[in-house]
């Protein structure tokens, strides 16, 4: 049998229910691994060792029932942008260094209700703004496949922790690719659900109209399992959908023969790494072998995705982050001589460079005289991008494409060039703008051993078909079984 830390969520559940391992053993395995490896990886910002062990003992002694809760005894990690009652939630920012929420995010509460054990809070780009995890106030996370490289972002800590077996699974958040891109870089499964599928209550907002919580897991079945638990209507979030979620695991093993998969020609961009292109070709062949029909489709407004996203997301962020003013909670510059100085100094010292850059971008584009040219125009472009997808899904059941044009890049490689960094999201942004579900599933490795991810996109509410395709692909390949040699 593999080490306990290597088990997926559903395997862990099996082992626990068959009494092959105790919950304490599982939790201890992860805690020891975190202790041993995370000093170099830096994927956790807070480890809840005592709390997790206490909960494990309660399961093992029978105080807590293990049986009927789908996540009973399973140790999970949470991106540190999700509010946890009584546990500090930093958002990777200095400004929230000591912020302890008095409430749980709805997704967190649902994990707890379903028996999960919270191992800790994972590192991330500050306020989820970034594609490399280099924007954390608490230092960069390293990619378990190559410690010189980034794990992707902004959910880099969650992706790295799952890839390095420092938890059984994790939650991340995706605003423009922040689950799918790090999942691709770290060789794990990461899914962004339809916008409104999972309540955002307690998810500290970056860009409210784009933010979604989703699972980062060791396999597709786990993604379905975790999403099932956290998804569904929440009266605390007006943008959370009332549509029933349905059984997300029911179709996982159904064959995909006869399905039509669209390949968007615009996603094979200039500058795509040839090894990524090769991995794509191999992935397409797998789908053909499974009986799917592959057709070329066009998403004509793809090119405008980056521009629209970098207007809309910073605009919302500039407003969402206004509450960090030093008045109520979080960092305050002491002994400022007046109110304005307190605001300026608290925010200047509390926020990192990328966050400040985006606040400025967003403030500018919402300003009088610029609103129509920027925010309104970008919102219109967003509608066109959404229509691109809706039309495309008239002719196909799902879309398959690369997640990122390249494998993980080196730490420091793009920090001096924000635009290059923004372009690493070029293939994930459109689905975010359109609000459709998407998943990243491992589809190969470069000659240098870096993982490559395949993106499956489905229509609104099409989580089940996305999971079905990803699972069929995963079952018929072995890319997901490889582990980083780390260490």
């Amino acid at each position, binding site marked *: 049998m593999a080490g306990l830390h290597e088990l997926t969520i559903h395997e862990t559940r099996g082992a626990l229910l068959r009494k092959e391992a105790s919950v304490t053993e599982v939790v201890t395995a992860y805690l020891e691994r975190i202790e041993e490896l995370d000093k170099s990886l830096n994927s956790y910002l807070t480890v809840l060792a005592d709390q997790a062990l206490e909960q494990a003992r309660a399961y093992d002694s029978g105080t807590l029932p293990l049986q009927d809760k789908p996540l009973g005894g399973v140790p999970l990690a949470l991106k540190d942008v*999700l*509010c946890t009652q009584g546990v500090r*939630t930093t*958002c990777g920012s200095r400004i*929230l260094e000591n*912020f302890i*929420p*008095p*409430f749980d*995010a709805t997704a967190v509460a649902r994990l707890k209700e379903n028996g999960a054990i919270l191992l800790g809070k994972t590192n991330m780009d500050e306020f989820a703004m970034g594609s490399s995890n280099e924007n954390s106030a608490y230092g960069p996370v390293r990619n378990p496949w190559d410690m010189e490289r980034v794990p992707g972002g902004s959910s880099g800590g969650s992706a790295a922790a799952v890839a390095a077996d420092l938890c059984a699974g994790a939650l991340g958040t995706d605003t423009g690719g922040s689950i799918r891109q790090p999942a691709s870089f770290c060789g794990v499964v990461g899914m962004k659900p339809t916008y409104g599928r999972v309540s*955002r*209550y*307690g*998810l*500290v*907002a970056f*860009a*409210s*109209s784009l933010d979604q919580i989703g699972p980062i897991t060791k396999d597709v079945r786990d993604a379905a399992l975790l999403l099932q638990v956290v998804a569904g209507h929440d*009266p*605390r*979030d*007006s*943008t959370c959908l009332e549509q029933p979620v349905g059984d997300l695991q029911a179709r996982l093993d159904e064959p995909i023969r006869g399905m039509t998969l669209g390949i968007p020609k615009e996603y094979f961009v200039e500058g795509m790494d040839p090894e990524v292109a090769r991995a794509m070709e191999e992935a397409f062949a797998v789908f053909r072998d499974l009986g799917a029909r592959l057709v070329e489709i066009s998403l004509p407004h793809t090119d405008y995705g980056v521009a629209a996203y970098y207007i809309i997301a910073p*605009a*919302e962020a*500039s*407003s969402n*982050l*206004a*509450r960090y*003013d030093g*008045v*109520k*909670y979080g960092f305050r510059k002491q002994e400022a001589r007046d*109110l304005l100085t307190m*605001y300026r100094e608290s925010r200047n010292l509390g926020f990192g460079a990328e966050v400040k850059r985006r606040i400025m971008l967003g*403030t500018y584009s*919402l*300003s*009088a005289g610029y*609103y129509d040219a920027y*925010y309104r125009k970008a919102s219109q472009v967003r509608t066109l991008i959404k229509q691109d997808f809706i039309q495309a899904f008239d002719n196909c059941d799902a879309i398959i494409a690369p997640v990122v044009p390249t494998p993980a890049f080196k730490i420091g490689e793009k920090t001096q060039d924000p635009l290059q960094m923004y372009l690493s999201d070029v293939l994930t942004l459109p689905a975010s703008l359109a609000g459709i579900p998407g998943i990243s599933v491992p589809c190969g490795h470069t000659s240098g051993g870096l993982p490559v991810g395949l993106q499956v996109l489905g229509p609104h509410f099409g989580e089940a078909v996305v999971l079905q395709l990803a699972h069929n692909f995963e079952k018929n390949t072995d890319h997901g079984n490889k582990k980083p040699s780390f260490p």
Partner: protein
Amino acid sequence: MQFETVIGLEVHAQLLTKTKIFCSCSTEFGAPPNTHTCPVCLGMPGVLPVLNRTVVEYAMKMALATHCRILPRCRFARKNYFYPDLPKGYQISQYELPLGVDGWLEIETEEGTRRIGITRIHMEEDAGKLVHDETQPVSYVDFNRTGVPLIEIVSEPDMRSPEEAAAYLRTLRDILRYLEICDGNMEEGSFRCDANISLRPVGSSEFGTKTELKNMNSFRNVQRALEFEVRRQRALLEKGQAIVQETRLWDAGRGVTVSMRGKEEAHDYRYFPDPDLVPVEIDEAWVEQVRSSLPELPDAKRERFVRQYDLPAYDARVLTASKDLADYFEAAVAAFPQPKTVSNWIMSELMRELKRDEREIEDCPVPPAHLAELLQLMDRNVISGKIAKSVFKEMYETGASAKAIVEAKGLEQVTDEGAIEAVVREVLAENPKEVESFRQGKEKLLGFFVGQVMKKTRGKANPKLVNEMLLKALKG
């Protein structure tokens, strides 16, 4: 040169919902600081607003009562600015798509009825309150008021004098109180007013440069501030100087407006649709449901009072000025069905006392049933009209009923003919000269005899009987 005054008002009315607009905290006024708060109204990281539907209904009531068109789809927008009483760094308000537009209401002026246009009515959340410590350089924030629902009612620049502005404000407040959606208390801040005012040459169709006036916390102050501003602007214009577009604060103590900030320092609020809230869809059925729940409004009630109670238009207008006063009148009439008598008593005796005490009708110590009882006693000749007035004063001061006062003080009219006859005989006997003069034709001496009888009975003798019996004795 003759100038015309142009005034438009922006009114904020706090709605009387039990809970706040985006969370379930209480809206109760006067609780200890920061006790009516939760993560949502404190703007903590990660929280989301959820719209209180009652706020929409209340706002719809006002929009319908002021003849606004209700948009089938309105939405909330963020108004971004930094201030310590604004925990999110933005206020959730409405901008491009407000709840209602293009309404009007009518005001009574000396020149007759004038129609004032209403540009828009929108919903928004209130901010918190700063509490400054006078003894040290510290300010505290009380977030109890944060998230209390407001509607903002923006008028067209249709008012032509400070008096009209005051009349518009009163009418607006009457409607809000009729609808029972706002208590209209300017001093406590549940009804607030900012004014835009400019002057232009009479006959000009273009607007002059306006100033915005703030910090006027009573009807009186609104009018005084506007009057001051008319004088200030006129003086500048007459000297050929330009008006500076700016926001000015009313200083009630000094009776002047002072510059607060100029156009350049005006905030850029960077409005954009709030992505945390979905648009509010209002279908015809909902509008009709709210419309059918509207109470009788001041205009309709005034017409009904004329029709149903046969009151003069003046009485009807006075009595319907507030819903509470109209209710008071109707309750009294129900117990004493002589509307004009009731109206006279309310408009003279009752309102005189209230005015002197600066009391509202709802705080009146004489309930309508007590007034009706007093009028009955008068009607049944138990007391005279003159006695009734003094009894009323005592009722107002003590809260006691008319009967109790009349009984305790033995104020019943003497209607016993034997008793009155005895006094009449006494008076005639004491004044033989006057009796003689009367009998010789000096009949206006009757008043003298009545006075003497009333004096001896301490005013309690029924005046009608006294008259009858005197005439009988003198002429018989």
